[in-house]
């Protein structure tokens, strides 16, 4: 008898919050709205903690079926939720970080209109995200997958009166559709060939299939299609373009959805489907290459951006690239580890950036900041923790996870490692650039900043004008508290996965091990006779030769020095010689402009896809099919009826004898017909 945890309650609690706030919130006071939203969100977190407390004695994977959903012949999909190590980690990240961001949002959104709407959307997002990670079949996961896309669309376009926000929401939704297309086809293929979408039987089925090394087969196709879906959701090349624009949403949204949780859904999905990917090396290679390209590409763009949120957005894309590299070299637990630490420090960085924006009255341009260190000390120190964590400074969360990925990448190919290392250097450089530009030097904004910024925080300054306060002020406690908690997590979060080379046990890898190892194929099986069953214990994960520790420490040293090099260079360029960046930019010329304009990718996409699509839709579908065929046929039907009746109405002359004549003619015709029929 397996225990029943009522896992379905975890996603349903935020849904209840969303429903209450969404339906009734208009009449509630702000206090009530935030109380409802926080209660249901934190209750979900509490439920997750309860599940954790019972977790150790559980038979895994633990599947709970709530109700049957689709039954068609042998095909069967239920509302069923699955608990294993992977979904547990994701559950804690989503509910934990999500709750903190909910708390922060209370302070951040307090002055905004549509307060209840915002929290309703946030809770709705939590519902779909929890459905996504707890689902025990691909179809339920797909519901969550689409639902987080919907919530993301709603929240990006939260300031819907602003045209840029509305179109950014649309862009995110449409670009994600392209990825979902791939995912959906992958699901169809799975149904066609395996007849089920439930994780447990599906992966058991696939586990008995051979590795497709020589030629690309079914699993490679499915893997590549799943990857297309993951690319859309996790903002990888070529579908990353929506994420920078998504910064139009309120900053807590960027932290929750576009840094900590939703964008990692693609990585989660790839990790969840590891059984498929392990048997499709070609798909894995493509994932790793895409991850490398994205990491490098986004990092270079991040170096040139001046909008504080855009830097973080490109940084997020770059870090997601890291997770893809990890998945691509079959180091899934390393990818999930980085996913977790990234959720901590990038959530923190976004929230701290929001606090900075809040402090300077809605300004997002880093060139107009500076010297904020003394004025907003809490924000400064928490952001420092986040910056050091993402830069890979030893001892902090990002160091352990990034180091793990780099080491595993090196084991696969030195090229992955080299790109990863250079990206680590760039990451450190642009993060410290942000840090120095924002907190050090002189304050360059207007002293009484009245600028209505992106999040319309301008009114804050008016509040403070009365008592001779300069516009810059620390955020309220309700915003600072989540920052501090996330900062603590960013500092200590890495210690669950200290690698063996540094004297740790890598508990995280061991904890996730059963998920990723149980169905892992023996990669060297293809050297042996085909058909010979490989021993199940022989795995790719965690099989480091003991002699590798020395090498691993050397590599750790290299990546750490890359991080410090970035710190030093940022200090040199933005503190020591602030005029130098302009000269460098000028000497680079057109290349700098290309990077500054994000390699013109948006423009290229606009020319290659968007404009032909709009033109084609306008000339062929709108003017051609809709107006030419559909409207034309409807109109000509009406015109024809009118013309026929125009000629027929002359029969209605009003002349009694002509009516009589018609009647007689008709009767004669009928009689003639009957006679003809009778004599035939």
């Amino acid at each position: 008898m397996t225990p029943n945890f009522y896992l379905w309650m975890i996603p349903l609690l935020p849904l209840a919050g969303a429903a209450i706030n969404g339906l009734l919130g208009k009449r509630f006071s702000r206090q009530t709205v935030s109380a409802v939203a926080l209660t249901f969100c934190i209750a979900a977190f509490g439920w997750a903690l309860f599940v954790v407390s019972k977790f150790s004695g559980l038979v895994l994977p633990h599947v709970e079926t709530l109700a049957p959903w689709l039954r068609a012949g042998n095909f069967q999909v239920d509302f069923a939720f699955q608990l294993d190590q992977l979904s547990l980690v994701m559950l804690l990240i989503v509910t934990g970080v999500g709750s903190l961001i909910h708390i922060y949002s209370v302070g951040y959104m307090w002055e905004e209109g549509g307060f209840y709407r915002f929290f309703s959307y946030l809770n709705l997002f939590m519902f779909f995200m929890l459905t996504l990670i707890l689902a025990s079949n691909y179809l339920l996961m797909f519901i969550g997958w689409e639902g987080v896309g919907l919530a993301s669309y709603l929240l990006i376009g939260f300031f819907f009166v602003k045209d840029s926000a509305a179109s950014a929401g649309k862009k995110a939704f449409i670009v994600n559709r392209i990825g979902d297309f791939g995912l959906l086809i992958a699901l169809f293929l799975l149904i066609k060939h395996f007849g089920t979408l439930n994780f447990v039987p599906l992966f058991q089925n696939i586990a008995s299939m051979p590795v497709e090394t020589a030629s690309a087969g079914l699993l490679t196709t499915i893997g590549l299609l799943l990857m297309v879906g993951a690319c859309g959701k996790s903002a990888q090349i070529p579908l990353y373009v929506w994420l920078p624009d998504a910064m139009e949403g309120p900053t807590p949204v960027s932290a929750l959805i576009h840094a900590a949780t939703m964008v990692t859904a693609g990585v989660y999905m790839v990790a969840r489907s590891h059984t498929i990917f392990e048997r499709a090396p070609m798909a894995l290679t493509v994932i790793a290459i895409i991850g490398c390209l994205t990491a490098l590409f986004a990092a270079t763009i991040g170096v040139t951006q001046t909008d504080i949120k855009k830097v973080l957005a490109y940084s997020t894309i770059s870090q997601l690239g890291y997770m893809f590299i990890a998945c691509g070299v079959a180091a899934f637990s390393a990818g999930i580890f980085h996913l977790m630490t990234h959720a901590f420090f990038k959530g923190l960085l976004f929230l701290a950036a929001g606090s900075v924006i809040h402090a300077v009255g809605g300004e997002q341009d880093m060139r107009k900041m500076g010297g904020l260190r003394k004025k907003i000390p809490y924000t400064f120190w928490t952001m420092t923790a986040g910056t050091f964590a993402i830069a890979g400074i030893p001892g902090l969360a990002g160091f352990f996870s990034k180091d793990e990925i780099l080491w595993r990448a090196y084991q696969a190919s030195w090229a992955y490692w080299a790109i990863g290392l250079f990206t680590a250097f760039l990451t450190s450089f642009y993060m410290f650039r942000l840090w120095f530009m924002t907190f050090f030097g002189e304050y360059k904004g207007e002293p009484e900043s009245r600028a209505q910024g992106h999040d319309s925080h301008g009114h804050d300054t008016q509040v403070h004008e009365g008592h001779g306060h300069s516009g810059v002020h620390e955020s309220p406690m309700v915003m600072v508290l989540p920052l501090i908690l996330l900062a603590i997590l960013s500092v200590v979060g890495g210690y669950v996965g200290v690698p063996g080379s540094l004297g740790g046990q890598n508990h995280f890898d061991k904890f996730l091990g059963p998920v990723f190892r149980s169905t892992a194929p023996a990669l060297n099986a293809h050297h042996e006779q085909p058909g010979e069953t490989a021993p199940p214990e022989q795995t790719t994960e965690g099989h480091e030769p003991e002699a590798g520790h020395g090498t691993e420490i050397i590599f750790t040293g290299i990546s750490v020095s890359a991080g410090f090099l970035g710190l030093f260079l940022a200090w040199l360029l933005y503190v020591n010689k602030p005029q130098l960046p302009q000269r460098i930019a000028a000497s680079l010329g057109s290349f700098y402009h290309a990077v500054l304009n994000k390699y013109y990718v948006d423009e290229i996409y606009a020319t290659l896809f968007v404009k032909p699509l709009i033109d084609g839709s306008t000339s062929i579908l709108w003017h051609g099919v809709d107006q030419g065929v559909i409207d034309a046929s409807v109109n000509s039907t009406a015109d024809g009826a009118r013309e026929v009746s125009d000629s027929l109405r002359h029969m209605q002359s009003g002349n009694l004898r002509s009516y009589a004549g018609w009647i007689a003619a008709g009767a004669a015709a009928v009689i003639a017909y009957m006679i003809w029929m009778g004599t035939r």
Partner: protein
Amino acid sequence: MVPLSYYLVLSGILFACGVTGFLVKRNIITIFMSIELMLNGVNLSFVAFAAHWHALSGQVFVFFVMVVAAAEAAVGLAIIISVFRTRQTLNVDRVNLLKL
């Protein structure tokens, strides 16, 4: 014994006369009389068939037709008087307001 076909031919001739009068004449009274002629032409064929087949239903039908014709004559004559009062004419070609 007069054969059935004679009656039917006579009935047809009467009906045709009625139709012709109905179409050709302009005076409403004459048209009305033509209608009566048509009805009686049909009545003749009814009784002829009834006598031929020794079936009473044909004769019953004739009574029905005569009742309807009487009712129709009453209503029709009332309409004719009304038309004459309003339009001072009985020419149907002048009574042509009921049109588009």
